[in-house]
């Protein structure tokens, strides 16, 4: 049994080496500093949101914006290098114009490779602005830090009057199928969500599994995958958020029936909710997030959540 697992890990490490080296050759250097800027606007004639302007530097790429039936624009974020390498510094800037509606997803999991010796951690900075009555739905796949990986992500989200946000993040423990759990060096998430100039949510997560074990029940305990889902709409009052929380708590209870996953929900200080998930298996996370998104969108917008095509 152990022999099988070792073989799986060896194969996985081999694949990682090929992917990493291939990406390094592709770009001819060990480090990449790249940015992707996406500006979305609502076409006042058609009501459809369009990608009005973009600035793209490899390996970050968006092929095109697809029209969604509810008038939103859908883009798939590609990292054509296959993942983040040590020392990579990526920047994503998204500007959702007034009344525009945008869905962003990824083409697959974000893989964080082990850096070469002496390399700095891979980093990604996300600068997000949602204009007046705009809506951003950010629905990515999981971040998977490989063994030895180092990663730092900073996200700043600014919501203007009436702006809405559905934003989830999923962190896997590593390559679970290869038996690789919490073998990364360090992962950091820094997220600020501000509405009308006021900070309504701030998260600072720094994970160093070798220094501070994830198996402590004060952290993940028996769970391995962790997810956070921010649901916001600026201007919705506290009493309404309590009602939505109650409704979503009922939804989450259906997904919490098994002992393999924990779902929690609470109102933020204003203008939104946070859903927290800890799961034994990564595959149990996405169905719950999608259902919460579907019910919350109906409650907040009276509309059906349209799944990004690749998620269906």
């Amino acid at each position, binding site marked *: 049994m152990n022999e099988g697992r070792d073989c799986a890990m060896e194969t996985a490490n081999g694949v990682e080496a090929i992917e990493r080296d291939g990406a390094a050759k592709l770009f001819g250097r060990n480090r990449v500093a790249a940015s992707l800027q996406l500006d979305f606007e609502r076409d006042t004639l058609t009501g459809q949101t369009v990608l009005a302007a973009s600035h793209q530097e490899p390996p970050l790429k968006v092929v095109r914006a697809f029209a969604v039936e509810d008038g939103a624009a859908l883009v798939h974020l590609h990292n054509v290098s296959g993942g983040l390498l040590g020392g990579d510094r990526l920047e994503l800037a998204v500007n959702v114009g007034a009344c525009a509606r945008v869905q962003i997803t990824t083409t697959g999991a974000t893989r964080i490779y082990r850096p070469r010796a002496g390399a700095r951690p891979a980093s990604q900075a996300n600068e997000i602005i949602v204009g007046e009555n705009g809506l951003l739905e950010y629905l990515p796949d999981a971040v998977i830090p490989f063994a030895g990986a180092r990663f730092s992500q900073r996200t700043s989200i600014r919501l203007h009057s009436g702006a809405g946000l559905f934003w989830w993040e999923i962190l896997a423990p590593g390559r679970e199928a290869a038996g690789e759990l919490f073998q990364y060096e360090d992962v950091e998430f820094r997220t600020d969500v501000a509405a009308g100039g006021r*900070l309504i949510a701030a998260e*600072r*997560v720094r994970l160093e599994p070798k220094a501070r074990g994830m198996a402590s*029940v004060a952290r993940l305990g028996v769970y391995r995958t962790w997810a956070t889902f921010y649901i916001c709409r600026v201007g919705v009052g506290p009493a309404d958020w309590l009602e939505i929380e109650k409704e979503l708590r009922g939804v989450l209870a259906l997904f919490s029936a098994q002992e393999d996953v924990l779902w*929690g929900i609470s109102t933020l200080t204003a203008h939104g909710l946070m859903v927290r*998930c800890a799961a034994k298996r990564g595959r149990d996370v996405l169905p719950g997030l999608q259902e919460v998104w579907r019910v919350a969108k109906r409650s907040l917008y009276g509309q059906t959540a349209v799944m990004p095509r690749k998620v269906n």
Partner: protein
Amino acid sequence: MHLADSALPIGGLAHSFGLESLVAAELVTVPELSEFLRGFLEEAGFLEAVFCRAGFRLGSNGTASFTQNWLVLNQRLSAMKPSREGRAGSGSLGKNFLATVSGLGDFATVNGALRASREAQESIHHSVAFGLGSGVLGLEEDRAVLAFLHSGAASLVSACQRLLPLGQNAATRILWGVKPAIVETMRRSATCSVDDASCFMPVLDWGAMEHPALPTRLFIS
């Protein structure tokens, strides 16, 4: 130590900050308690210690922008607490703590902080209030942080005595055993800014978020 005593009438014994949910779900049992407390100190303890220091420095270095800094500090900590009950519990303890300190003498800074928070309808978090009060009273910063962390750990152990089959002697041993973690957390917090203060406790977050849904509750949070 007087201000960190669990007997101080600020309501400290009425909160479990999500631990009650974890016990109800059998995620924390007596054998895991020491490890849980160590992790709690390394994460939530660290975050609160950094904010305690920031409050302390506000209290001991009066500046012209005190009111703004005080409000922003508390607003930031509110934003970092994911559960409504956790924010409310910390806010209740902080407000009661500062009101208690206010009653001990004529402290313009403490009274100003209470007034500013009331007018702005902002929370007063326990760690920030404890730091501010300690700074105003001229205590030593590291000692104030140690006292605050010890107080928090002792409150959780006390909560466990009511939630779990945990006797006095075992509780004392557990609290004694985490003192190195208290000291280490105090040390780590000394060089960390409030913007860098981190906390990762998703299971306890779940406990605090789901506490309102518990059918039977001993604690407010």
